[in-house]
């Protein structure tokens, strides 16, 4: 009897005799009883009998149990090697852990190798930060034995293969061959005495096994190392023999060893390479280049879409890519057409057109359209009788390029609202050109009274005949449609039109245009009848009367024999009376515009008649003159000269003796009429208003300008007869003679005038004549006499002074000026002349004194200030001049001359600011404007300068200096045309003033020069001055 202690703690008894039982037999018995496999049973015998040789399994048949020291009633303990994990685990009850205590130091989750996760980074990481080191430390502390199967980590040196393998997972304690990372599973197994013993036994076995094969193994290892060294020799060993020879090298040889270059990759110069991402703009551009516009325009759709619109193919198609694509496409199309059945499945041409009509749309557009589509769908569903919904729905589809869907929609619309013409029109528009006629035919069948539909139907026809046929059909249904009638008449030829119009006026007798058109087509006699009929039908229509008048006039023109102008007047007169009888309010404005319209078509007589009959209607008695003049002005502005003329004619017939109307009429004739008409008008005028000298003078001047001096003279004589004491006429006569180189006659005229008690002007003119003729004595005599009569006329004093100056009688000249100033102390030109004279004679100081007195007597005299400043400048007293200028500007802040001088005096960089100041003070002053223009000129800003010059000459057209400057500017920068234009304008304006201008124009030698010559002389003087400066 031997007891067997098996791992689950139970003890079994096996009834054997140890002295007669072999080990193998016992093993079989033990296997039967304990289920431990036979191969797993080993024997740990040393403890009992260490002298025994280890029993190998092969001789287990021969060894008895007693040989192992097993006796009767001895206990054999079966330890199970923990080579496999499962069979060793003690089967615990399932939910044991619910009640059992956890081991101390247990870290939850670590025992089973659980890892956390981080999903909410906002709150923080799920894992504890010092996770990993902590874990391994705890794992070793919590599981000291780690399981029985694991060998001891110590004496790992030089063990057999089994041991080496175990050592590997000892190093990585968390890993177990059987349990993976789950070593903690058995961490709770208790390490008791049995375990210790077993470990000791195993250890001894291991040691023994180790020592047994040690020599052999070590030898083997050594051999392997040798082998390895032989196959992989060290570099030093390899070159050892060569190195040994180095001691034979001489110093020179050492030196001649070439230096090794630096070939390391690191120092190799890197080639410049940069990778810049392509900018988006470039990509976008490239994309656009490739893009084709696929939308098909309605025009080509109207053409049926049956052919490819080659004109629309963009140029980029010519690229190779495009060609390639085309080839592929055509190949595909060929394949399709050569399908098995032999018939073409796809129409290649149509397919290409379809491709062309494809439209690229963005997502948003599609979204919008889909929304719109939905909207209209609901609209048409909820209210199918509303035509607008259908039309809109169809339009959405059309915009989307789905023309079929659009047609479908509109067709449904037509079905739902057949009585709406808009739907039909839309349907017609959307339909194929071939189908359109059918659609519109249906439409007119359903709504035969729709003018629009008929017109649309006519539009769809291509040739005139069909069109008019359709329109006539329409007229059968709607005979009173004026639009249809008009359309049909427009299409017809003259003969047919007349017939049609006859019918038309029967059908719609209240439509004026038809009547008028008919009248225009008929012969004179017939149209008269027509108009009479029309008048019966439309008694309140003035246009009929006007047409009748025009008709008469035209007839009169054709037929010279009987002039119907009177007839025209009669018709208009009667018409207005009739209309008034009918109760029509005669609107003057309307009639006047009618008159203008008549003038435009050339019916002057009608126009005149209308004006004559209507101009007085509705105007108050006292307002008449004013209103008519205003009307005439308006007409003139609008270019209706005849109407204006008629108005004036009528006005003059009422106001025969009104000078102003005669003048206006004369001006009209002068600007728009012929010389003869003007002449006739003036003649008439002077007969009615003989005391109006302006009219006489105008007539004389016209004659003179026409070169007819005797006639002019005759007119003046007549005028003189009519108004005997008019100085103007005397002077005009003098001027005529004087300018025409008849000084004797002029002198006689002036003498007569002086006798008749002429004014100072006559005296002055007389003196001028003498001056011109060189009769100094006579001149002086005249001046003195004149001064006796008119001592306050400063011009005479001036002339006297100038006369003395001319002959260097400076003392007399000064005396003349002084006396002159005594008589008229506020005459600035006199002061200036005196100062000038004094400056010449006695120097600056005297002149200064005179100018100061002058300024005291005439405060606010800008010219005096300017003269003083210039005098200072002439003597190079710049500071004094500036001082004076500031004072002057305080005294007369609004003086343009002073500001202009100030601008010119200022140093160049400050001129701009000065000019701005000046512009602020006196905005519209021509002197300042010209100064600014000069500034621009200096800066070579030609366009601006020209604009400013133009402004200056429009503001001050009378000042010759400006014209001269302008001309000079154009000489420098302008073209020939510009120059001519300036000269022409200057001549038209007849400038008389301006410092330089007067100096030249008043000079004796230039007395009779035309303006153009004077202009050029002034320009020459200016450039001379500039050069000298």
């Amino acid at each position, binding site marked *: 009897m031997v007891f067997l202690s098996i791992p689950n703690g139970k003890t079994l008894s096996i009834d054997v005799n140890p002295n007669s039982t072999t080990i193998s037999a016992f093993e079989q018995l033990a296997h039967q009883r304990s289920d431990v496999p036979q191969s797993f049973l080993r024997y740990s015998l040393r403890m009992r009998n260490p002298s025994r040789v280890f029993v190998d399994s092969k001789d287990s048949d021969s060894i008895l149990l007693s040989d192992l020291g097993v006796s009767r009633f001895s206990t054999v303990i079966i330890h199970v090697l923990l080579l496999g994990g499962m069979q060793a685990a003690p089967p615990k009850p*399932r*939910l*044991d*852990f*619910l009640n059992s205590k*956890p*081991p101390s130091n*247990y*870290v*939850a*989750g670590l*025992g*089973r*190798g*659980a*890892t*956390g*996760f*981080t*999903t*909410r980074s906002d*709150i923080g*990481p*799920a*894992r*504890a930060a010092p996770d990993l080191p902590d874990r391994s430390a705890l794992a070793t502390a919590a599981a000291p034995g780690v399981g029985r199967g694991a060998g001891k980590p110590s004496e790992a040196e030089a063990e057999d293969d089994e041991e080496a393998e175990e050592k590997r997972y000892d190093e990585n304690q968390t890993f177990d061959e059987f349990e993976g990372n*789950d070593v903690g*599973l058995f961490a709770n197994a208790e390490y008791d005495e049995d375990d210790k013993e077993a470990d000791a036994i195993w250890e001894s076995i291991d040691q023994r096994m180790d020592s047994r094969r040690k020599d052999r193994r070590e030898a083997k290892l050594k051999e392997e190392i040798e082998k390895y060294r032989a196959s992989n020799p060290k570099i030093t060993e390899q070159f050892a023999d060569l190195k040994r020879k180095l001691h034979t090298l001489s110093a020179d040889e050492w030196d001649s060893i070439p230096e090794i270059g630096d070939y390391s990759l690191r120092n190799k110069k890197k080639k410049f390479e940069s990778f810049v991402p392509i900018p988006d703009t470039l990509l976008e551009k490239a994309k656009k280049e490739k893009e084709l516009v696929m939308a098909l325009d309605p025009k080509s759709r109207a053409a049926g879409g049956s052919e490819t619109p080659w004109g629309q193919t963009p140029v980029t198609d010519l690229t190779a890519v495009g060609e390639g694509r085309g080839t592929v496409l055509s190949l595909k199309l060929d394949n399709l057409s050569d399908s098995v059945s032999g018939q073409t499945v796809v129409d290649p041409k149509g397919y290409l057109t379809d491709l062309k009509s494809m439209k690229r749309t963005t997502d948003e557009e599609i979204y919008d359209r889909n929304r719109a589509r939905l909207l209209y769908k609901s609209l048409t569903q909820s209210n199918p009788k509303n035509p607008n919904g259908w039309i809109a729905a169809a339009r959405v589809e059309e915009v989307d390029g789905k023309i079929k869907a659009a047609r479908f929609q509109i067709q449904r619309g037509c079905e739902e609202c057949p009585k709406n013409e808009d739907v039909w029109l839309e349907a017609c528009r959307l339909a194929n050109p071939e189908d359109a006629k059918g659609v519109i035919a249906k439409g007119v069948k359903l709504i035969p009274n729709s003018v629009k539909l008929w017109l649309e139907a006519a539009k769809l026809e291509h040739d005139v005949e069909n069109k008019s046929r359709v329109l006539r059909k329409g007229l059968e249904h709607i005979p009173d449609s004026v639009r249809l009638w008009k359309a049909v008449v427009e299409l017809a030829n003259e003969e047919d039109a007349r017939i049609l119009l006859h019918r038309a006026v029967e059908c719609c007798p209240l439509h004026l245009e038809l009547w008028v058109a008919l009248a225009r087509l008929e012969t004179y006699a017939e149209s008269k009848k027509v108009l009479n009929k029309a008048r019966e039908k439309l008694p309140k229509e003035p246009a009929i009367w006007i047409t009748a008048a025009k008709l008469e006039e035209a007839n009169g023109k054709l037929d010279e024999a009987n002039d119907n102008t009177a007839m025209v007047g009669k018709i208009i007169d009667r018409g207005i009376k009739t209309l008034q009888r009918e109760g029509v309010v005669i609107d003057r404005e309307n009639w006047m515009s009618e008159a203008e319209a008549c003038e435009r078509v050339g019916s002057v007589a009608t126009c005149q008649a209308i004006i004559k009959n209507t101009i007085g209607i509705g105007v108050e008695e006292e307002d008449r003159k004013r209103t008519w003049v205003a009307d005439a002005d308006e007409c003139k502005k609008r270019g209706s000269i005849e109407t204006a003329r008629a108005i004036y004619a009528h006005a003059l017939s009422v106001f025969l003796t009104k000078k102003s109307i005669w003048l206006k009429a004369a001006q009209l004739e002068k600007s728009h009429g012929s010389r003869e008409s003007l002449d006739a008008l003036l003649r008439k005028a002077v007969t009615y208003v003989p005391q109006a000298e302006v009219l006489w003078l105008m007539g004389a001047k016209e004659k003179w300008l026409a070169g007819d001096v005797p006639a002019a003279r005759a007119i003046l004589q007549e005028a003189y007869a009519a108004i005997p004491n008019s100085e103007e006429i005397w002077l005009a006569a003098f001027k005529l003679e004087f300018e025409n180189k008849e000084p004797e006659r002029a002198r006689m005229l002036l003498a007569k005038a002086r006798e008749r008690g002429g004014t100072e002007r006559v005296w002055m003119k007389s003196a001028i004549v003498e001056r011109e003729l060189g009769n100094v004595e006579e001149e002086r005599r005249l001046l003195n006499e004149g001064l006796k009569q008119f001592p306050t006329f400063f011009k005479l004093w001036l002339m006297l002074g100038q006369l003395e100056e001319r002959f260097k009688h400076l003392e007399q000249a000064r005396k003349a000026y002084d006396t002159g100033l005594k008589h008229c102390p506020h005459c600035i030109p006199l002061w200036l002349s005196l100062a000038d004279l004094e400056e010449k004679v006695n120097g600056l100081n005297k002149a200064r004194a005179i100018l100061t007195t002058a300024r005291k007597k005439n405060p606010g005299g800008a010219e005096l200030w300017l003269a003083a400043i210039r005098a200072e400048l002439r003597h190079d007293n710049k500071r004094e001049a500036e001082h004076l200028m500031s004072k002057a500007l305080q005294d007369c802040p609004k003086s343009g001359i002073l500001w202009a001088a100030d601008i010119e005096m200022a140093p160049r960089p400050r001129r701009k600011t000065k000019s701005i100041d000046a512009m602020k003070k006196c905005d519209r002053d021509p002197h300042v404007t010209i100064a600014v223009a000069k500034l621009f000129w200096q800066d070579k800003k030609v366009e601006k300068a020209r604009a400013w010059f133009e402004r200056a000459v429009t503001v001050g057209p009378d000042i010759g200096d400006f014209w001269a400057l302008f001309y000079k500017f154009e000489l420098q920068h302008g073209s020939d045309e510009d120059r001519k234009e300036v000269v022409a304008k200057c001549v038209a304006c007849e400038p008389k003033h301006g410092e330089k201008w007067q100096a030249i124009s008043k000079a004796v030698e230039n007395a009779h020069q035309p303006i153009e010559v004077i202009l050029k002389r002034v320009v020459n003087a200016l450039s001379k001055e500039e050069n000298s400066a």
Partner: protein
Amino acid sequence: MSYLLPHLHSGWAVDQSILAEEERLVVIRFGHDWDETCMQMDEVLASVAETIKNFAVIYLVDITEVPDFNTMYELYDPSTVMFFFRNKHIMIDLGTGNNNKINWALKDKQEFIDIIETVYRGARKGRGLVIAPKDYSTKYRY
């Protein structure tokens, strides 16, 4: 209804419960028994526990008593249900953005059973992440 389901009172017990099951899915509800959301969830869990006992086992964990997993499993929500199979946390795509757990009270028993079945099938095939039969993203709630 939490009294009908086994509670785990320590982190060790939780680990052991997960390790002990070889063939069944372990469903653990983390939360508090007194919590309203948990009560609703527990109602469903308790009622389906018997039905699913062949392939899943349900435990409850009080996260105040056992705070060991609060960080690891981010147990911030009132109720969290997680699935484990053979010591592996099985994730489930519910459409909520958090694939790790069910962090709200599921009130439909059949839905819950479906989810557990899906998880179980996926886990058996070795999947780490399964897709829930129903999308629980908020956009379908409204």
